[in-house]
């Protein structure tokens, strides 16, 4: 049986909750959130550390507290949601097929869909580490779930590969629970995590962070007994003779996050090879009409506050789309160049006059640069940065005048320029 819904939101984590709230506040009442876990809140439920919400709520919350704020907003509005419900497929016509234990198979036809499915961790298989298949190898997020949700300790002597935020947070978390974290090993010459996390999760507990190193072999029978690490050259290839063996029973992998776009592909949503998420316009609409994307399924964020902000905007614009008020116009493409790896959104509608927010990541660590938006050869916007790193997303907030200027250009690029001395 097919039911009709104005707006279906796939995912009840921070992105989905914020999108639902703002779509409701924009006047939309026929909303359904589909969540595959048994609780709303998504990954925040296992992120028990503090540091969330400084932008959104002007106070420092833990992950579960931040999630609860948005869950309360959704409950207060009586927005419909289904838990334990896995979406099996979506298509171009915005038909959503999902299943759960109570209802069995459900098919909906939606006027608009918001993809808010988040991201997943890169697994061991994606990084080709040689060695055994012993127990004791976990993604950092899995270890986080085991400790914080299920109450199990996955190991005692730990090496962590990758210095992304989850890896850093887990170094501290494992230490708190009595484990010995012997090293955090990072392939790149810099961390992709936040500086504050290096300070409060590693330095506070004298956990060594080894840049330009990687794990080349995992040893052990039944259970991990040691890992072999080695230094890497500029091309990231291990250097012979630099190997050292570290005894441990656990290896955590924090080697990157990938937007989860299996459903998007079914609906022919065009994806960016750089972000791994959809290509969107400034309304966060993908190139498949009526399908929107926000949060980590669109591009991986460092801060949940920015996920909420982006998703509230997507929710508002999806509500406008359902009402038939989304402008369909010619678009200007926004390219990333000269040190900037990507910009979201990739396209900007020429119509509409809301001030634009451009989000981007750089491809390397750069010091003393200007972050510039160039339209048809003219500088529309520029900001000096003491340092930009791939680990920290940069945002450009254009004012109304700069937004208008950008919308009138044939060609727009965002790039880094050296600061003239």
């Amino acid at each position, binding site marked *: 049986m097919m039911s009709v819904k104005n707006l279906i939101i796939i995912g009840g984590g921070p992105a989905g909750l914020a999108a639902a709230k703002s779509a409701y506040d924009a006047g939309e009442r026929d909303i359904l959130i589909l969540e595959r876990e048994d609780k709303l809140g998504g990954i925040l439920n296992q992120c*028990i550390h503090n540091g969330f919400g400084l932008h959104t709520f002007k106070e420092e919350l833990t992950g579960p*507290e931040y999630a609860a704020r948005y869950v309360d907003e959704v409950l207060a509005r009586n927005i419909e949601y289904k838990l334990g419900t896995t979406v099996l497929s979506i298509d171009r016509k915005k038909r959503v097929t999902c299943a759960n234990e109570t209802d069995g198979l459900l098919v909906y036809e939606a006027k608009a869909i918001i993809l808010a499915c988040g991201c997943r961790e890169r697994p061991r298989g994606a990084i080709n580490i040689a060695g055994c298949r012993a127990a004791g190898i976990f993604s950092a997020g899995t270890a986080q779930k085991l400790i914080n*949700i299920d109450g199990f300790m996955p190991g005692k002597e730990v090496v962590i590969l990758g210095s992304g935020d989850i890896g850093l947070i887990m170094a501290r978390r494992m230490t708190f629970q009595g484990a010995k974290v012997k090293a955090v090993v990072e392939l790149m010459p810099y961390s992709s995590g*936040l*500086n504050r996390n290096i300070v*409060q999760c590693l330095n506070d507990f004298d956990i060594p962070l080894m840049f330009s190193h990687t794990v080349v072999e995992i040893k052990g029978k039944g259970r991990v007994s040691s890992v072999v690490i080695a230094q890497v050259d500029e091309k990231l290839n291990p250097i012979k003779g630099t190997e050292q063996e570290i005894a441990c029973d656990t290896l955590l992998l924090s080697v990157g996050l990938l937007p989860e776009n299996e459903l998007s592909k079914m609906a022919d949503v065009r994806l960016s090879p750089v972000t791994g998420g959809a290509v969107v316009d400034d309304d966060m609409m993908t190139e498949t009409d009526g399908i929107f994307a926000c949060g980590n399924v669109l591009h991986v964020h460092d801060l949940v506050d920015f996920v909420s902000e982006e998703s509230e905007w997507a929710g508002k614009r999806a509500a406008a789309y359902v009402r038939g008020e989304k402008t369909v116009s010619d678009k200007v493409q926004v390219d990333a160049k000269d040190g900037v790896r990507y910009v979201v959104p990739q396209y900007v509608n020429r119509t509409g006059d809301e001030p634009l927010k451009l989000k981007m990541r750089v491809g390397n660590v750069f010091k003393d640069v200007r972050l510039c938006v160039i339209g048809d050869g003219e500088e529309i916007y520029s900001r000096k940065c003491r340092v930009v790193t791939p680990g920290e997303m940069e945002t450009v907030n254009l004012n109304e005048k700069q937004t208008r200027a950008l919308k009138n250009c044939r060609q727009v690029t965002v790039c880094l320029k050296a600061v003239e001395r």
Partner: protein
Amino acid sequence: MKEMICICCPMGCRLTVDDSDLNNVKVSGNTCPRGEKYGKEEVVCPKRMVTSVVRVKDGDVAMVSVKTKEAIEKSKIFDALDALKGVVVKAPVSIGDTVVENVAGTGVDFIATKNVGRI
């Protein structure tokens, strides 16, 4: 003089702290008042928030997350964590409920950070 990274928020401002006179510590490089406070505290008496989990009885989840209501002295972190050992709370639990009072003599309580329903 000490160079440090402020941990108050994800901005991670690079601070320069003049600690030649501990009664008159000077902080520069901060972009907000929290950074100044952090820089001063870090050279006088560094403090940290502590977060962990404790077991729940009859709850709709196995564990409830907790935090120190305020930052406590860094040197007391592991004493605070010891105070959580063996603690079991009964569902239902609401955000803000006290889980352990006056942790390790700091005068600060551990409070719940998750709502847990009863089964």
